[in-house]
């Protein structure tokens, strides 16, 4: 895999992880029955996808 592909995947991974973390932070300041659902289903999924993409990027290099 070329360095450019790795860098592109890192960029996408950073967007996913940071978006997930941003959702997770937002739910900490929100008192609503859906906060935990949003935290896990939206934030957790985005972070999980970002982490998996990062791990895939470094092992497939």
């Amino acid at each position, binding site marked *: 895999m070329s360095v450019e592909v*790795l*860098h592109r995947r*890192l*960029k*996408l*991974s*950073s*967007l996913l*992880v*940071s978006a*997930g*973390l*941003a959702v*997770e*932070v937002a*739910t*900490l*300041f929100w*008192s*609503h*029955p*859906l*906060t*935990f*659902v949003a*935290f*896990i289903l939206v*934030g*957790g999924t985005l*972070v999980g996808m*970002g*982490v998996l993409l*990062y*791990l895939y990027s*470094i092992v497939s290099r």
Partner: protein
Amino acid sequence: MISYVDQGLAAIAIGLIALVLLIGYRPSLTDARGGKVLAFLSFFILPVLATWVGTSEHLQHSKSTGFCMSCHVMEPYGQSLRIDDPSHIPAVHYQNKLISRDETCYTCHTSYTMFGGVKSKLQGMKHVYIYYLGTVSDPIELYEPYQNRECLHCHDGSRSFEEQELHLDIRGELASNETSCLECHGDIHDVHALADKPMWSGPEPGGAP
């Protein structure tokens, strides 16, 4: 009011977001060994840790009275905690601080068993599902008859409990649920008679205005 723990977690997470975005937009930083280690920490270890800590914080928050009161259907049950009547059991517990006002609902409506907390959380997810996609019963019904275990968790061995001869006479029946505490102490969350009841002017459950 956001707790200091939540504020601290948010500050750490925002710092982590900045770090992740920096590496994402300057991926050449990972060419060096130190950059690789930093990327591994900020793309894998720290986000997983943040999610785990956040989950724990959310589960802790779900015990709070304010969280329970954030569902509209719970408002009359919260109001029933302010009924000015010494025979109304939940109100007496709330008003006299016999239970924590921050975890009023959870204290009496969790199971004091090994996995009672987990069971309560799973039931909480079911509550959310029913609240948005199902039909909430009126009045709200418990999943199973109220267990004396939840009362005895605090009252067993207490002076006010032990000095009542009747309690001692039927201790075995209470322990086995043969006789329910609610048979004598049955004035619980009388939400359909709220308008006719005098109300205590103390703090609103969950801090609602």
